[in-house]
């Protein structure tokens, strides 16, 4: 039996989520919180295995909730469940210590799977969220990295080029035009002082952006 803490300010949503969770039979909603403070209180007092937390709640900022829980009950895995689909939210919540991130829209399909994965000690992220995270982490390492001068999108394109993807593939993956991809490639070469794609690949490997 996996016990779940459900923190969401919206009763109707909580009801829906509860039915999703309890339908499994071996998952149970141990506690429900309608705001951030209550969520922290319940997480500390109730014997829960996984906390499912919305980051837009009244009272206490969602990110703050994650930080405090992380500080006070570090072993409790936190799954962020939110309306927000922007990549920036993924990076910030995972950096704050959440173990998983799913959008509410995908809850019916992914919530139970994510809870199980977190309970088993793993992480749960969508592919794109995982990549964003990897880039952010790569840039976060060390002091003066040559990657510091690059934007997220430049990092993404650099990684894709290093992996040997064609301009067309990259354009399709990032929903941008081939011309834009080429602009990025040119800027990367100029910024990094490199001459061609082969050098880009070597550089990306040296920086740990891609596996050798």
């Amino acid at each position: 039996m996996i016990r779940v803490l459900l923190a969401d300010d919206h009763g109707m949503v909580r009801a829906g989520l509860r039915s999703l969770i309890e339908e499994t039979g071996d998952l149970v909603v141990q506690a429900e919180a309608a705001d951030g403070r209550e969520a922290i209180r319940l997480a500390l007092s109730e014997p829960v295995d996984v906390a499912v937390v919305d980051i837009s709640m009244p009272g206490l900022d969602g990110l703050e909730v994650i930080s405090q829980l992380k500080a006070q009950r570090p072993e409790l895995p936190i799954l962020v469940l939110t309306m927000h689909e922007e990549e920036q939210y993924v990076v910030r919540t995972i950096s704050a210590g959440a173990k998983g991130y799913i959008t509410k829209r995908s809850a019916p399909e992914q919530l139970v799977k994510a809870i199980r994965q977190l309970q088993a000690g793993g992480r749960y992220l969508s592919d794109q969220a995982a990549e964003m995270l990897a880039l952010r982490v790569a840039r976060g390492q060390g002091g003066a990295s040559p990657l510091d001068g690059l934007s997220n999108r430049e990092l993404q394109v650099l990684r894709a080029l290093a992996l040997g993807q064609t301009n067309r593939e990259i354009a399709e993956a990032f929903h941008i035009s081939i011309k834009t991809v080429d602009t990025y490639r040119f800027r990367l070469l100029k910024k990094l002082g490199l001459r061609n794609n082969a050098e880009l690949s070597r550089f990306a490997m040296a920086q740990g952006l891609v596996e050798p």
Partner: protein
Amino acid sequence: MRLRTILLVLSLLALVSTAAGAMYYYYSLRASAVAQAHRQAASRAQMLTNQISAFLSQNQKPAAALASLHQMQQALQNPRSQQALDQANAVLDKFQRTLGVDVCYLMDPKGLTIASSNRHSADAFVGQNFSFRPYFKEAMQGHPAKYLALGTVSKKRGAYYSHPVYAADNKTLLGVAVVKAPIRLLEKNIIQPGEGVTLVVGLYNVIFSTSRPQWLSHTLWPSPLQERDAIARTRQFGQGPWPWTGLSRRGEHLVVDQKGREYLFYAAPLTIFPGWRVVYLRDLDELLRGAWQPFLRTTGVAVLGMCLFAGLLVYFLYHKASREILRRQVAEQDLRLSEERYRGLYHNTPALLHSIDTSGRLLDVSAYWTEALGYSSQEVIGRRLSEFMTPESRRRAEQEVIPSFFRDGSCQDVAYQFIKKDGSVVEVLLSAIAERDKAGRIIKSLAVLSDVTTLKRIEEELRRAQEKLSQYSRDLERQVRQRTREITSFLRYTPAVVYMKDAQGRYVMVNSRFAELFGLGTEDIWGRTAQEVFPRALAAQFQANDQQVLDSKRPQQAEERVPHGSEEFTYLSVRFPIVDETGQVLRLCGIMVNITDLQKAQEKLRRLSGAIMASQEKERNAIARELHDELGQVLTALRIDAVWLRGHLEGADAKARARVENMCAVIDQTISEVRGIATRLRPPALDDLGLVDALEWHTADFERRTGIACVFTHAQVPPVSDTIAIAAYRVAQEALTNVARHAGASNVDVSLRGDDGHLELRVVDNGVGFTADRLAEREGLGIAGMRERASLAGGELSLRSREGGGAEVLLRLPLYGQGGGLH
């Protein structure tokens, strides 16, 4: 006239010599052409003879071959055997076809044709006896023969080739085999019409073949009657008649036809037919035409050109000569006229001239004199001069002037009044000199009168003009006084403070407002400087602004603060110099308007605008939250249930399942739309995650939407207040919108940097940049809004075009202090 004749003769001579040269050239060209034609004709005749001989010999051997065939022998030995004849005929047919000749036939020793390739045609030879033909006779004596004739049966000209046919023992002569070839082949291949006429002439000069068909069967020369009988007897040239071509000899190699046309004549014997000749005629006229044409083409043009040149030269010289002659005539005419004028000078000069004799009677008057006084010369000559004067003048003339003149010999500028015929008076000045005889006695006078009536009138007019002028200047003075009063009134009643200083900064005039503001009137301040009358700070402010105008010599505008009692007013002060023609500043004028209240109102307006913008942001934020958190959540809950329902209808009612499927799709769509609206109103990331994340999201979203590469970088951005964050975000948003709409850029950099208590947002694109027009256009499209936001947050916005294209929007906001303090 003589000059023209000479020129004409010269030009004729030039023409004649040109023409003579051309003639000589032409004749030598012609002689050489004729000589060459003779050579060509001789060789052509010989060549034709060779060709015709060769052509006419070619069927001799086939005839021999035909005669040697045993079918021929069989047919001649067994003339009654139909089989033998058939075989012979078959062979003849084959030869005829192979050789392409008219006919091949076989004759028995009596000359009777027993077999022939033309046996089936209307003019068949079989059964015909050709024993009269020389070729038959020759063959029967054992010699092969050839012969040219017009066929008696076929009526076609042909070359006959006969050969004796021997029996198997090679001794007994059985008959003759004959091949008849058509002459038209010869005409087709060799004797073609072209340069010259080719004739094949037989015995008795009968033309057997020719390139000129109308001469066929004619005799070359006129022939006597008995010769015609002989021709008929040979049966070689048909029935006749054989008319004469009309040619007759003129020399060894020259013939002429009846029309007088001359031909070169060259003949060569045709040795294989004794007595026959090949004749070649070449038309001499045609030949010379051939020589004449190139002459016309080259020399003709040159001659024409020279003639034209000569003609033009003559025209030019003639033209020059005529002008010279005309010029002389005009000069002579001028001289004559000048003499005549001289003679008529006295009478026709536009001056009043007269002469009187010692008794005071008029001897002579100029035409101008009579015209001016209105008399004719008949009316005045012989009468006393004084008769034409007013009584006063007459008295003076008779008693004083005339006696004294005839005593002294001259008088000068005597004022008289003459009476014209119409009764009006003319004022004149008379000057005269005397003409004396050889003894020195005065015999008559020569006087000149000048009409001073006009002079007097002009003097009068001048006097009136002077009066008018002094009237004008009185008016002008009055106007100046009035204008001065007007200006003084303006200065007194204007709400502006007005003053005027000299170039050294000394006050020369101030208006009443100035007096009210500073408590100093013109009398108090005249000749003093600002330093002398105002507190030090105020004087320094005035002087600094004055100096700018004196240096630039241009109007300047400045805001000045003036203390007044316990208050301080703000004045908008306009200064302008008054300069003289050399550019030297004479006066410095100042007009000051109190704008204190205006500035207060502006400040109030700015605060109001800020409040409106802030409230708009707040409202947007509230609506976005409401949409995102409330409606979004409800839709999410709805989706959870809909998906649950979909799972439970798995394998059940297909219709219900389709409905649920559709429901899920509609909910998804609605969630996307609600999120989109909320984000457009105010991106949640701005409030949840802060400026950097919000801009990161916005730039990526911009790139996705527009396809313009958009790179966001940031460095050392500290936490900022909502006001700063919103201002920076909205300015970035507006700048990027402008880039997408107007810049035509392919990439844009957005950078955010915190340093030295400021936050700097820079949006740089590689598009067309700002032009004055585009800036004005953009000012209405959001730049005003950006400026407003910048100023509300206490910062400033600058726009500029970059070297090498592109534009830069720079927003600089203070992190602390005015409107930007941390919450």
